């Protein structure tokens, strides 16, 4: 980070530099500047060394720099105004500056903070407090293979720093991104520990093929397990949304997420320890119908089937008042699930270093528990991250990074069965004598399934990444340097699933006996074990050239990268264990066991480069290009060229605007680029056959034979999906950050879309369709971010609001042509479905006689629009509706406020133009939401909210057809994060030899505002069977020694 400030220092003091240093030194500095900005090797002390050589000694000033919360800020640049005298704060925020003229003005600057000027006025101790900048012009933003100051940025890049990320109490990085990155859509659909990744989309959906963005961690693409990087180790996250992603070529069409981890800084070592303890509770649980209400519904079904109603009024009353223990009204959700579970996290980091060697070593541990009451489900993560930077000499520096991670997940052998929590309420979870009930059928009692009685599934994931990097300045050519890295990572997953038959009981009222039943579908224990490993190596080598003369600033590089991946797995199964005491393979039966295993390889190779040119930091242009080769494609279709260009004009630097003193910055940006998407399975150009356990068991003794299955029909022409993106943006900032705005409009056109042609190819062809380059789509939208920050007496605050809109459109898709115009996908949003247009509920006979209705309609059913006007409601009346469960509009509001030691952070995130389809049904064997059961149509009802309820899982009943009636508006606003913290005053803690002590309470997903209230609106399940999303209340401390 600090190297960027040096760049600024160099830029603004060009003349004096030329005097002070030799030309060669300048070359070195420039090279290193670029080098640092690329890799973050913080070996910039060389420049500092030099700055101490000159000038006349006058006085010494020292002090501490902190942020608003009182946290010491390491790496702040302190410069004597108008000179080259400067230094940086150490890890504890302290600095000492010699040779300062008595009347000097000190300039304190730091990335993302408002630069502050303080008159020395003869003082020897000056403490400074820096506050966060609205949209930090000097903020350094990580871009692909490099960094840029936001002020000279030409592309559309959203970024968030460690400060915001670490405030969200989550152990999963994907859950910390909602609301803080304009244009990034996240959706969390599960709260299961270890399995709670949010889906991430950048600028909506751009293709009918794969929509996953590329994730790059410290220069390494597609690292698995990035979701589990300890948020405290993350320095920043940037998102490349436009042509700036072209530098990642064939994998970047869905956008790129760049994660940069923290590195050491010179200074005495600081030890940073934080601990937090959280409690989690579901954001929302479905409220199911009570026994009495459900029994009335069952009676209705009985009567309709010509049977006597099975519950008398007396029985209904007993259900209602709970006076008879035989008339149970069970709430399966609250009886089976814990009110809250815990999550804890420990983080310890040691960072520091000398001018020659800097280090950052951190370790973390987290532990989360599962939600079922008897469950021993838990999820632990352990990680260690060590980043080392060394200066060998003034030309050569190296870096060594080692990261290790271990995720230890213990789940019940019987799984977490949330679908079965919709059991009918007459059945208890436990009988009065304490025996567990057998649930609906098959012994599926979710609480027992989730307990150790059903066995255990242990998933252990080990990851190791080693990376060495170097940077070499070519001393005899000004501006030339070479750098590169080699990274190797290994991931191993061990999955051991030990399943036991569990015991549950039915109760026979007639004989007052409990009937034992085995659950789990098996009679004896069984074990499935698998071991899979993958490794990937990456070589990157780069030549950089940098030139700065007068007002011209040029930096460029050309680089090559090559990666090679291999993965394999091995699995084995044994059953019919005669004893359940040892859960190892040897103890299983020798009969009916099986083993399996395979291996696959992949490779990539590419050449890429960039030229950045700036004139007086006023006219800026970046040209990126990548020539990418992937083993996913056949020879001749393998290489793709992906260029991108972006330009910016800082109008505020022009003379005609410089007189406007309230205008800090006004910048116009524009970009256009070509990016690729190759996220498909390999070898689709070949006819391949899979051999496996897919034959028949022929013979008297039924000996299993192997079966051979043909794969996809070969597509010899398969190649890249190509995206062309356009972006236009405006950045403006007034009154020194009091008000700032960033706005972008974009358009992406995706062509050669990789998708299977299943919409057009008849099933009788029997083709197992490969991906083909078919169709094109378009996606347009905008992002707007406004921020305001100010200081009012002791209170500093910042409010930022962002909104993003993206709407896709299928321009061309190979779809069936013999369909009515109103059902075609072309011209519509990606991912839409066809629905009947529900008009209303038929409530009376005259109404029944009057409307056009579908065959089988009864009074109480929905009726639909006769779209083709043929007086018949059939599938031709289905209409494609542009409503999907990917939000078109997402927004966030972030508020931070500081008062003395107190600070507050709040992040609201939400989505609208967002719908979820629910297939509602209830019959004698399955309960439904109270809202649905109570408000269903019953005979004579003139105002029921819902029609006659469908009874089947399939969509064959008139009211259960895919219709707009059940397509619900799922718009919501959530308080994603709230944090209140207090930093103990320095005066107090300095006595304890502590540099900083901060106490905080925070929370995640604390409340939700939505219309439907059936479940968490981020849900994507139309049947309420997901692991409930969790809210977290958290208490923690952060200690710095």
């Amino acid at each position: 980070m600090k190297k960027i400030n040096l760049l600024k220092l160099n830029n603004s003091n060009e003349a004096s530099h030329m005097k002070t240093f030799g030309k060669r030194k300048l070359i070195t500095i420039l090279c290193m500047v670029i080098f640092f900005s690329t890799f973050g090797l913080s070996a910039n002390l060389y420049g500092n060394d030099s700055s101490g050589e000159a000038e006349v000694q006058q006085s010494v000033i020292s002090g501490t720099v902190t942020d608003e919360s009182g946290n010491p800020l390491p790496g702040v640049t302190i410069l004597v105004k108008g000179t080259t005298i400067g230094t940086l704060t150490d890890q504890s925020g302290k600095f000492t500056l010699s040779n300062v003229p008595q009347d000097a003005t000190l300039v304190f600057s730091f990335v993302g903070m408002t630069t502050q000027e303080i008159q020395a006025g003869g003082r020897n101790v000056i403490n400074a407090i820096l506050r966060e900048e609205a949209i930090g012009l000097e903020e350094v933003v990580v871009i692909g293979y490099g960094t840029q100051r936001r002020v000279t940025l030409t592309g559309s890049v959203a970024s968030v720093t460690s400060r915001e990320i670490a405030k969200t109490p989550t152990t999963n990085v994907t859950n910390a991104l909602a609301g803080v990155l304009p244009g990034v859509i996240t959706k969390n659909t599960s709260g299961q520990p270890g399995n709670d990744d949010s889906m991430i989309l950048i600028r909506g959906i751009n293709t009918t093929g794969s929509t996953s963005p590329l994730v790059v961690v410290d220069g390494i693409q597609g690292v698995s397990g990035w979701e589990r990087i300890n948020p405290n180790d993350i320095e920043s996250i940037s998102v490349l949304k436009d042509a700036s992603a072209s530098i990642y070529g064939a994998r970047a069409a869905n956008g790129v997420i760049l994660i940069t981890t923290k590195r050491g800084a010179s200074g005495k070592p600081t030890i940073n320890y934080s601990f937090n303890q959280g409690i989690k509770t579901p954001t929302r649980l479905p409220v199911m119908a009570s026994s009495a209400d459900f029994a009335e519904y069952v009676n209705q079904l009985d009567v309709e089937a010509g049977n006597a109603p099975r519950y008398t009024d007396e029985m209904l009353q007993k259900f209602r008042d709970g006076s008879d223990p035989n008339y149970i009204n069970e709430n399966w959700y609250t009886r089976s699930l814990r009110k809250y579970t815990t999550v804890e996290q420990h983080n310890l980091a040691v960072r520091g270093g000398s001018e020659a060697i800097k280090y950052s070593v951190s370790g973390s541990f987290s532990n989360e528990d599962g939600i079922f009451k008897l469950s021993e489900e838990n999820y632990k993560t352990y990680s260690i991250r060590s980043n080392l930077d060394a200066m060998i000499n003034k030309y050569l520096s190296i870096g060594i990074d080692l990261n290790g991670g271990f995720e230890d997940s213990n789940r019940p052998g019987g799984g977490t069965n949330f679908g079965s929590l919709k059991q009918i309420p007459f059945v208890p979870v436990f009988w009065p004598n304490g025996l567990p009930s057998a649930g609906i059928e098959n012994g599926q009692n979710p609480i027992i399934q989730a307990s150790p009685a059903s066995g255990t599934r242990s998933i252990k994931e080990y990851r190791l990444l080693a990376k060495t990097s170097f940077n070499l300045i070519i001393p005899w050519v000004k501006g030339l340097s070479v750098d590169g890295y080699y990274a190797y990572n290994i991931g191993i997953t061990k999955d051991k699933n030990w399943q036991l038959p569990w015991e549950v009981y039915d109760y026979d009222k007639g004989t007052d006996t409990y009937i034992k039943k085995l659950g789990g579908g098996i009679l004896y224990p069984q074990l499935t074990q698998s071991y899979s490993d993958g490794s990937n190596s990456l070589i990157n080598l780069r030549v950089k050239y940098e030139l700065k003369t007068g007002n011209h600033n040029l930096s460029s590089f050309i680089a090559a990268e090559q990666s090679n991946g291999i993965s394999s797995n091995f699995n084995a199964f044994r059953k019919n264990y005669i004893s359940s005491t040892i859960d190892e393979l040897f103890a299983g039966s020798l009969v009916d066991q099986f083993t399996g295993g395979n291996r696959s390889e992949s490779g990539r190779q590419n050449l890429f480069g960039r030229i950045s040119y700036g004139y007086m930091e006023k006219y800026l242009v970046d040209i990126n290009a990548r020539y990418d080769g992937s083993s996913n494609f056949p020879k001749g279709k393998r290489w793709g060229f992906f260029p991108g260009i972006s330009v910016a004009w800082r109008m505020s630097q022009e003379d005609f605007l410089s007189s406007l003193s309230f205008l800090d910055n006004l910048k116009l940006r524009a970009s256009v680029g070509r990016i690729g998407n190759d996220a498909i399975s390999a070898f689709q150009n070949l006819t391949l056959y899979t051999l496996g356990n897919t034959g028949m068991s022929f013979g008297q003794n039924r000996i299993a034979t192997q079966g051979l299955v043909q794969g996809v029909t070969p597509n010899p022409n398969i190649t890249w999906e190509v995206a062309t993106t356009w972006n236009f943006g405006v950045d403006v900032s007034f009154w020194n950050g009091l008000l700032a705005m960033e706005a972008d409009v974009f358009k992406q056109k995706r062509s050669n879309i990789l998708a299977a042609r299943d919409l057009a190819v008849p099933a009788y062809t029997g083709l197992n369709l490969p991906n083909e380059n078919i169709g094109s789509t378009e996606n347009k939208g905008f992002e707007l971010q406004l921020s305001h920050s100010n200081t009012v007496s002791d209170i500093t605050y910042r409010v930022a609001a962002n909104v993003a809109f993206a709407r896709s459109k299928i321009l061309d898709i190979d779809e069936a042509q013999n369909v009515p115009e109103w059902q075609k996908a072309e011209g519509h949003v990606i991912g839409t479905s066809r629905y009947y247009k529900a008009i209303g509920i038929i409530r009376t006979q005259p109404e029944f006689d009057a409307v056009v209705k579908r065959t089988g309609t009864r009074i109480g059913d929905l009726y639909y629009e006769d779209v083709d006007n043929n007086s018949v409601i059939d599938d031709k009346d289905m209409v494609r509706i542009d409503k999907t469960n990917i939000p078109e509009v997402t927004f966030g509001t972030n508020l931070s406020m500081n008062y003395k030691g107190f600070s507050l952070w709040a992040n609201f995130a939400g989505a609208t133009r967002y719908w979820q389809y629910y297939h509602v049904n209830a019959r004698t064997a399955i309960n439904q939401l109270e809202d649905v059961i109570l408000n269903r149509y019953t005979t004579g009802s003139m105002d029921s909210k819902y029609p006659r309820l469908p009874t089947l899982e399939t969509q064959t009943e008139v009211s259960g057809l895919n219709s707009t009636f059940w397509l619900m508006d799922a718009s919501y606003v959530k308080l994603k994060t709230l944090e209140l913290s207090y930093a103990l005053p320095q005066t107090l803690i300095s006595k304890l030899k502590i540099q900083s002590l901060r106490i905080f309470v925070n929370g995640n997903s604390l409340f939700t505002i939505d219309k439907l209230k059936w479940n968490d609106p981020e849900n994507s399940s139309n049947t309420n069977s997901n692991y409930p999303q969790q809210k977290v209340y958290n208490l923690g401390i952060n200690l710095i020694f």
Partner: protein
Amino acid sequence: MNKQYNLLKRAAKRVLSLSILLTLLLTINTSCVKDVLDKSPTDRFSDAAVWLDGNLIEAFVNNTYREVPTSRYNGNFTSTALIWGELTDELYGRGGNHNYINEGNVTAAQLGALDYWTQSNWNYYRVVTKCNLFFKNIENAPVEESLKNRMIGEMKTMRAFSYFNLAAIYGGVPLITQPFVLTDDFKVPRNTYDECMNFVISELDEAIALLPATYPSSNYGRITKGAAMAVKSRALLYMASPLNNPSNNTAKWQAAADAAKAIIDLNIYELFSSYKDQFLLANSYNSEAIWSRPFNISVSNEMNPQNELRLYPNGYSGYGQVHPYQTLVDEYEMVNGFLPKDDPAYDPQNPYVNRDPRFYASILYDGAPFKGRAVETFLPGGKDSREGPISSWNATETGYYVRKFIDESITNPSNLNQGNNPWLFFRYAEILLNYAEANYFLGDEVTCRQYINMIRNRTGVNMPPVTETGAALLTRLQHERQIELCFEGHRYFDVRRWKIAPQVLNKIPKRMDIVKDLGTGIKTYTVATMANFTFVFTDKNYLAPIPKSEIEKNSLLEQNPGY
């Protein structure tokens, strides 16, 4: 001069350094192109490897076997157990999953359980595709002649069986015999029923010539000569039937008779000693079984029939998924050969005594001994009724459950714990009935009666012989087929090809309500109608609609009339 020289020197240096570095870069980049980008699959076999290796080709054939649909649950059509039975007057599927089909409301957009065309499992075109790929490659495969011939015979039979079934369900379908490639024009019209069936017969003739009559026991379950002949027998019978032979061309009946007789003359098959037990795992390859499809859920991850789980009554921890109608129960004769309605000795308040032994082998009724106790479908409180203690919502809605096919030794049935009973595509009893039917239509009533009576006289059944003539004999013949082959997937097609579906299927099916007086223990039996739906059969229902999605993709496909 000097300055210029220095500039030149510096420029040269720069160019030199840059070029060295770029060369280095390019070298790295190009030197390993081959290694890095030229991967070959290590988890799958290539086309070239497969069709040169007899073992791999055999594995391909083995896999094709498992794709041939049975009438059992397959994961596609949920809440089913014996799919074809549920689409007739045999079985009610709990919850009424197929009501809309039975009510005549099946549409091209929603075929439900009639979709054997586009579904991912139980799809005849998937079988056809595998066979087509096989035939494209087998010709030149260096495989031992006897193995090659056997595999050709097996695959030809499976493909013919698939087209036979497609034609029976939909009428003529596109007759595809070559694998498609991506660049093909996929739009092909339907072939006629006769074109499809002529192909079926000629393919079967070729297969019959290639296949062995028997296998060593290690290969039991493979298609034999007899199995191919059995497919041919059923195919020719369907072709000769009134639905497909409106002019009653007797040559067609003669062909059907000959095909059945050819199997009889093989002298390999005979009726098994137990009507009930022939469907059990232990008897997978009994003397009556002609094409027996094994299941081995212990080791195979294939679609799982969950036979016992789905058929057991709720009181035995089953799903009790399908329920025989009273309408079917009424068709089981008294042991004296009369139908209950025609037998004055029949007591409607004691309905389950003295019935055809096949009734007790096929149906679980109130009082039937099963797994150590009597089945209780009575109210109040019957263990297998909707007031039973176990999963009462899984209780029968007709008063009956299915007994046929069940391995009674299974306790705690589940998707893994099941009897692994085979599915009998063809058994000898059918062939005898096919022969009887063909002879009836050829005018040889003596032979017709003789063969029906072979069935009625089978060990353990011993029903009195049929003596009727003329139209009455045809009714007895049809009735015998209904009883002997019930739930085996015949009824749907039989009532259509005989063109009796309008009479048989246009009625309100019945159920049995049994109320027990808890004081006296006396049960009252009341036959009631199923109130929530009515069977409706109109002419369009002779054939199922062609799936809408297929017609959308191919405008040349003509829809069946009425849809």
